[in-house]
């Protein structure tokens, strides 16, 4: 686990929404999915995930229900609500705008100024 980047503040929520947008997941599954889609480049403290999940449920962006995992463990599954899907689209767009602007800014060379 060498080259991992600390999450920028506020990005954890977006990552969770992304992970859950691909299908209902339990908490541990969300961690695995984030690791998978980010190629293990992003570090999340395991426990820190849960307060964030609770916050998102409370904001009505996700809903949770108890179910059974693939290896027959009882687990709580999270999925996006309609509001969650809308928020996810908006957040993704604004993130893309931000990164595009940042990359453009950082890619500027001396002769272009």
């Amino acid at each position, binding site marked *: 686990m060498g080259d991992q980047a600390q999450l920028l503040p506020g990005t954890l929520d977006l990552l969770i929404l992304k992970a859950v947008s691909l299908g209902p997941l339990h908490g541990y599954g969300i961690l695995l999915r984030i690791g998978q889609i980010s190629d293990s480049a992003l570090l999340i403290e395991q426990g820190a995930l849960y*307060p964030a999940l*609770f916050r998102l449920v409370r904001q009505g962006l996700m809903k949770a229900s108890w179910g059974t995992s693939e290896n027959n463990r009882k687990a709580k599954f999270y999925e996006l609500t309609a509001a969650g899907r809308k928020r996810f689209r908006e957040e993704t767009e604004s993130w893309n705008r931000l990164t595009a602007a940042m990359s453009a800014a950082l890619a500027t060379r001396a002769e272009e100024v």
Partner: protein
Amino acid sequence: MNLAGYLGGLKAKFLRRAESDAEIDAELRSHIALRADDLERGGMARAEAERRARIELGGREKYKEEMHEALGGNFMSTLMQDVRFSLRVLRKSPGFTVAAIVTLALAIGANAVVFGVMDGLILRPLNVPHAESLYGVPYSNNPTWQSYPNYVDLRDRNRSFEDLAAFNFSLGAALDTGKDAELANGFAATGNYFDALGVHPYLGRFFHASDQQGQNSAAFIVLTYAYWHSRFESDRNVVGRTVLLNKHPYMIIGVAQPGFQGTLQFVSPDYWVPIVNQQELGGGGDPNDRSNTGGVFESFGHLKPGVTPAQAMADVDAVSAYLEKTYPKQVAHQKTEISRVGLSAFSSGVRAFVAGLSLLAGLILLAACANLGGLFAARAADRGREMALRLALGATRKRILRQLMTEAVLVSLCGGAAGLIGSMVLLRKLSTWQPITGAPIHLPVSPDAKLYWFALGLALLSAFLFGIVPVRQVLRANPYEIVKAGSTARQGRSVTVRDVLLVVQIAICAVLVTSSLVAVRGLMRSLHSDFGFDPGNTMLAGVNLATAGYSGDQVPAMQRRLIDALGTIPGVEAAGMVNGYPPLVYTAGTKVSVFKVETSDLKPANAAALPYRYDISPGYFAAAGTSLLAGRDLLWGDNKNAPVVAVVNRNFAEKIFGSVVNAIGRSYKLQDGTRVEVVGVVENGKYQVLTEDQQPAIFLNYLQSPVSPGYIVVRSKRDPQQLAAAMRNKVRELDSGLTSDIQSWNSLLQTVLFPSRVATMALGVLGMMGGMLSITGIFGMAAYSVSKRLKELGIRMALGAQRGEVLRTALGKAVKLLGIGSAVGLVLGILASRVLGYIVYQATPRDPLVLGGVVAAMALLGLVATWIPAQRALAVDPMVLLREE
């Protein structure tokens, strides 16, 4: 929301907490199981995998707390946790807790009492409808133009008042229900009095303007609810009954509503009679004499809508200017102030006094908060290790502060509750207190919801004030340092917040001690100052012949028989009479205008002097102990048929005639033109209040202007109890129907001493509280610094330090802070005491005894407070201490 609903909601909150707790646990367990499954698949043993999974999860309790927070609505449960924890912590140090609660109870209690008094006297409106628009022309110590005829003119000519009513104090009258006569105090009120106030009777009816058809035409009496309750046992059949007032039949026509007591906040009368009948009852003087200002005490009315007090004042001024122009001989126009009805002329004095008291009480609270702030800061420092551990275990600083605040609030709520209970007991006592015997004066204080809110507010405010002191300490605390090194290792800066707080507190306490000493000393001096008479060894018999049906020439004749009879009691050295009230009794005094003989236009503006006038019998000066400086005393021969003569005081003689010797044989003129020859000069004295500047006074012979109420002064060294009994018997021998009010002059002086007494009492109590607070403050600081430095002290002793050096090390700082605080407080106290001079006669802080007293008191307080810590420091056994740790 009703109570059941509220409790239900509370219960649901706790249930939800338990529910969500279970769910959170289940979810975290499931996470650990899933992670362990994965790790197991990677080849780890199950037990090791589960351990690993738990470690990877991180601070479980911390995350659980955050999850609860994310769920929202756990305020109550956090609060309950904090409360439970705080209670445990507080129970662990009962000494600290009790000291803190007692300190706060005293401080909040003092403030609540002052607030209760302020509420009763100033904040609460009079118990009449629309009290806010009720304004009046108040009684004042200066001679006014308020006489009955002038009142009638003002009532009819003003354009500002809806209706102008007036009342006068009716002298205590004997009220005879057929079984027995008892003195009762009442108001003589104009016919429109009740209608102008807009009040309605509880029983029967009130009298109205239409009931008055000229002098002595309305023999009606209205009772107050309280008097009806106590004297007539709430008998509903009293209406229509006839009682005897000073032997005149009066019909009871009604009873007022409970709580209605007229327009003076601090006087509760027993009854009202129509003002047109007051002369028959022996009060008010001549109702047709425009210059007789004894007929009306105060007039008042509701302002018409849209009329401002300033406009009303201008209006009243215009009317009185008109009256002066029309009746130049009788009316001296004075700039008239009109004010809210309720406190009368005492308004500004009472306000200043109450404001001063609240300031001092506020200072007490501030000192208490400084004291507790210091204690809490010291505790926070001691608990540094505990806090550090909690921080290290993942508690947020916010949470720790919240818990500390909870502790502070708990302590202050307990203190506030105790203080509130104490203040309520005291206020109830105050409301039944009769400060002046024989006068219907009482403080209208009654604790109510406002007081509870006030106490609660103070408790929360003080919790905030002292709870905030340790905040910075907690915020800056570095858990790793403290856990590593222990809380004792770090020496603080040389001047800490605690030191500053202690100096502030001691300074405040020194201010209180200074002011209370100044007040006590002032009171002592005024008790022994020169009144111009000697109230020691004298007994006064107040006799109002009108109450027994005497009139005309019978009055002076009977008065002479009384004087002679009382003079023959064995052991009596002298007896003499004074009409009305003797000097310094009930702050009553009559001033008259006198003119030089050559003045022909006798209007008040031309008066040469405005002396107090006393009508006395021969022998009065001997009985009063007033010494004659020149000339002769009045004689029995100076009667109605002889030329009018007077004795004057030194001030009058010097003012009018240049010197004492010059005055004898010279004359002056009274308002009615009578020429009065001065036959003697007596020493100066005090006449109405102790704080007055030296005033002129004239003493005329009562035979030449008889009035029925008067006091006979009897001088004797006999035991006062026996003497009073003998005097009462003598009076009864002469006329069994005559009631007499027998008291010593000294006890009647309490009226004039009342303000000083109250001020001294209040300041004494506050000063004592200040003293106690500074003891606890210094004690806390000294005990803390000794306990912190026990080890160091032990080492010093082991290295051969002497006792003196040890003490200096241990307590030097406490003593230094005490010195600084006391000095600051003394200076502030001296400045503050100037204000006291207005209330307490001869209160001066520039008195070596006061200054010495303050220094001695503070030194004594310091000694008491540092005694135990000093003993502890000296008892240090270096061997024991060094063996520890």
